[in-house]
């Protein structure tokens, strides 16, 4: 049975229809990468699954249970199963690095600070950061290091599901590959189910078991990662080869 299932999920903001009936399934322990251009509804989809945004209609099932509109402790327990790596890292700048990593353990799960600190240091080591980095503030770190700290924070509570929102955006190609490797390692170690959204094809090929392409708020293709080159879908071909010409037309002013 699929771990995460979306059925006909729709969401609009004002007159703009962002999700036009998303259907998607992710198997337990699988890594799905959702590719698609900017503004095609990738982030909105993740936020709907997390309940940060409420879908207008449709079903979202996690572990077979409908999770749309959860409230109170049910919602808290539901969210405790997730970890998320945000696009801009979203580290709390008023807290030190280790406090960031331990945040979910201390505030969310009520662990003692000393225990949580040990776990945080251990998770920082998993992403290749030494314990003395733990006492710095996020603003003192480079973008790549911030990403690593954010990854450590996302995996700190050993979540069963992890979301990666453009994990390599804004990094140089080498650091991007380091992050990709860390993601693959961490996910394997945890056995977590993951959904990543990206428009970086190198990253997608590296971390995906399955790839799905979203276009105008719909999933227009999905398949195993190694089949993406022979998808037979003109939209997918255009996207993975990064061509300006093709069925996907950008709203660019023609001179």
């Amino acid at each position, binding site marked *: 049975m699929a771990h995460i299932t979306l059925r006909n999920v729709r969401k609009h903001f004002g007159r703009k229809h962002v999700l036009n009936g998303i259907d998607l399934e992710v198997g337990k322990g699988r890594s799905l990468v959702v590719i698609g251009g900017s503004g095609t509804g990738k982030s909105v989809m993740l*936020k709907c699954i*997390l*309940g*940060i945004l409420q879908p207008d209609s449709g079903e979202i099932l996690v572990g077979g249970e409908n999770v749309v509109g959860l409230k109170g402790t049910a919602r*808290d327990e539901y*969210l*405790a199963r*997730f*970890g*998320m790596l*945000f*696009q*801009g890292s*979203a*580290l*709390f*700048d008023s807290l030190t690095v280790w406090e960031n990593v331990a*945040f*979910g353990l201390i*505030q*969310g*799960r009520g662990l003692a600070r000393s225990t949580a600190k040990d776990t945080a240091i251990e998770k920082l080591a998993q992403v290749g950061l030494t314990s003395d980095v733990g006492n710095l503030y996020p603003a003192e770190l480079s973008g790549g290091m911030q990403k690593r700290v954010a990854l450590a*924070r996302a995996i700190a*509570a050993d979540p069963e599901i992890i979301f990666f929102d453009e994990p390599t955006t804004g990094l140089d190609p080498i650091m991007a590959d380091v992050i990709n490797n860390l993601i693959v390692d961490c996910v394997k170690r945890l056995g977590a189910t993951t959904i990543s959204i990206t428009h970086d094809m190198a990253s997608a090929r590296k971390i995906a078991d399955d790839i799905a392409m979203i276009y105008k708020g719909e999933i227009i293709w999905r398949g195993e990662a190694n089949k993406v080159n022979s998808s037979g879908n003109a939209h997918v071909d255009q996207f993975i080869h990064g061509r300006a010409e093709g069925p996907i037309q950008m709203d660019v002013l023609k001179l």
Partner: protein
Amino acid sequence: MNPLALLGRIVLDFLAETGRIALFARDGLIQGLAPRYYVSQFLLQFWRIGYTSLPVVALTSFFTGGALALQIYQGSSAVTASTLVPNIVVLGICRELGPVLAGLMVSGRVGAAVAAELGTMRVTEQIDALVTLSTNPFKYLVGPRILASIISLPLLVAIGDTIGVFGGYVVGTRSLNLNAFAYINNTVDFLQTSDVISGLIKAAVFGFIIALMGCYHGFHSKGGAQGVGRATTNAVVSSAILILAANFLLTTLLFGN
């Protein structure tokens, strides 16, 4: 555009915003002030909102008390000045000027800081990150700020009232040559407990308004640096206007008969 349509749009936008603020206030109170409590967050905010606002409120009150004494002296005769100056200074400070000026000063300091901080947290997705780390932002961010502000403002105003009266006393006795002993006697005799209490009730309401507007505009800021700037301005302007409006309403309620 048709002017009637424009008017309609403005009215609808205003009502929608009022509704959103009311819903936010409900969430802030119900979720924010119910367990679980983040004591360290509350203490931090209490220190930031209350303690660090003390110099600003103290200076404002002192100079207002002094200026008030000068003006009242101008308007009274040599015979009545010795009673009118202390009486009106203490009444004006405790009932109106103390809470209103403290409210306005704190809204400029704290309301702006809260809106900028939460606004930055919003646009950098830190508020969403809180949610994914099993932490309710209303309990972690909004609740402690509202509570700290509601408690801080009356304390600030109590101190500000004292300093304001002292400002009047200093000007009255040093520059207007009023008798120091009589000044204090007139102040104490004339002042009633209800005058102070009513001012402190106002202060608590203003504290709620400041924290609510700061949190609301911060939470709903969007679009990067410009959005955060706009949120900060909106927080200060809206809380200042609401403080003055609420002051009028509370004066009517508390002293109406």
